[in-house]
């Protein structure tokens, strides 16, 4: 098993070598969203992205945990209503 793994790693390194050797320089890629064909909140969101990545980041990292927490609470409530013990573990085997 470990010999197979070693040979697989060597094969992968050989396969990747030309790609690494072919590498060349480049400039940072700056993306701009084309908001001309968008409307409503999509246009607003695209403009937020274009105008301030800082504000875009702030809204993203607030939205995700808040939505996650709300959805999680709702699912937990439904499971508890079904009679599932969602507060303690029965099986303690490691």
């Amino acid at each position, binding site marked *: *098993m*470990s010999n197979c*793994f070693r040979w*697989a*790693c060597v094969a*992968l390194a050989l*396969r*990747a070598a030309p*790609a*690494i050797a072919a*590498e*060349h*320089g*480049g*400039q*940072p*890629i*700056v*993306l701009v*969203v*084309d*908001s001309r064909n*968008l409307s409503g909140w*999509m*246009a607003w*969101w*695209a403009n937020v*992205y274009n105008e301030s*990545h*800082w504000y*875009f*980041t702030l*809204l*993203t*990292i607030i*939205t*995700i*945990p808040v*939505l*996650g*927490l709300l*959805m*999680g609470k709702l*699912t*937990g409530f439904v*499971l508890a209503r*079904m*009679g*599932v*013990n*969602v*507060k*303690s*573990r*029965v*099986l*303690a*085997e*490691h």
Partner: protein
Amino acid sequence: MDWFYLLMPIAGTYIFWPGLVVLGLGVGMISGFFGMGGGWMVTPGLNILGFPMAFSIGTGVTQMAGPSLVSSLRHAKFGNVDYRLGLIMVAGTVAGFEPGARLVMWLERHGRVDAYVQYGYLVLLSLIAWLVFTDISRKNSKDREARALGKPVEASSGIEWHKALQKIKIPPIVHFQKAGVRCSVWLPVSVSFVTGLLAGVFGIGGGLIRMPALIYLVGCPTHVAVGTDLFEVTISGLYGAASYSYKGRTELLAAVIMLLGACIGAQIGAVATKYVKGYGIRLFFGIAVIGCAVSIVMKLIASAYAPAAAFLNAAATTLILGLVGALSLYIFVRFLRGVREELALQKQMLQTTP
């Protein structure tokens, strides 16, 4: 059928949105069960659905903070989270994540990000699969020997690298109560730095690497490794979301659509760990890793051999979605069976209580 396709305003591509919900639900279950954010499945999954690689990584990292938060709160209720260990590891992960994310941006500028990430993934997945199955194989042979000698088999474990690492007593020495581990603080810090660096490169919360690292290098029991890792994935996932959003490679709309399924799946996955033994979790974790690696091999062959590209890409898509589907189904069945038994037990106890 046009309404099945939704325009992603930032990435500028039309995406099959039911695919996002199904991917979210499946990955949520798998992450809650195995203690990972699930980015290792989300990133190739999003790439397959049509996102460019840098956006797949950024969006995958962003969405994982939600279900990880849900799962870690549930695991905390079960006593599976060692907060002290988790917080120490957060420091190492964050320190390692940023150089990793910068490396991806550098690779993107050089036009090689897709190839490097795929090759890197493959090496990493192969290593983890080898580790998990070697562990299971060693445990099985130890169990057989123990049975032959008439000794109890419960206490045996396969790979025990953590025992050697815990003997390195560089001060300060800390005791992690929930994990039952006493070691140098530098052990979890260094393990998390390396896993954080790899997480930054591959666009994953690091759980794929950290969960086995917590078991094999730090010495955590499986359930505590799952819970503690999810706690850390929540924090590192948020940091990763901020990092990739600031670099402009996040599609929030896709992340929110996935979140709807992922949060439900995360609860089911976390509750399912109540009913499955530690080595059972490790075995299915290994199977998932192998399936993911095979799908990446298919993609790599497809990019190198054009005549078979269409077939291999379709096969890789089928495999990854099939894998998410099969594992989710397994977790869901174990969840339903466990719940049914638990409810029957509760009913029995009520009847016997005077």
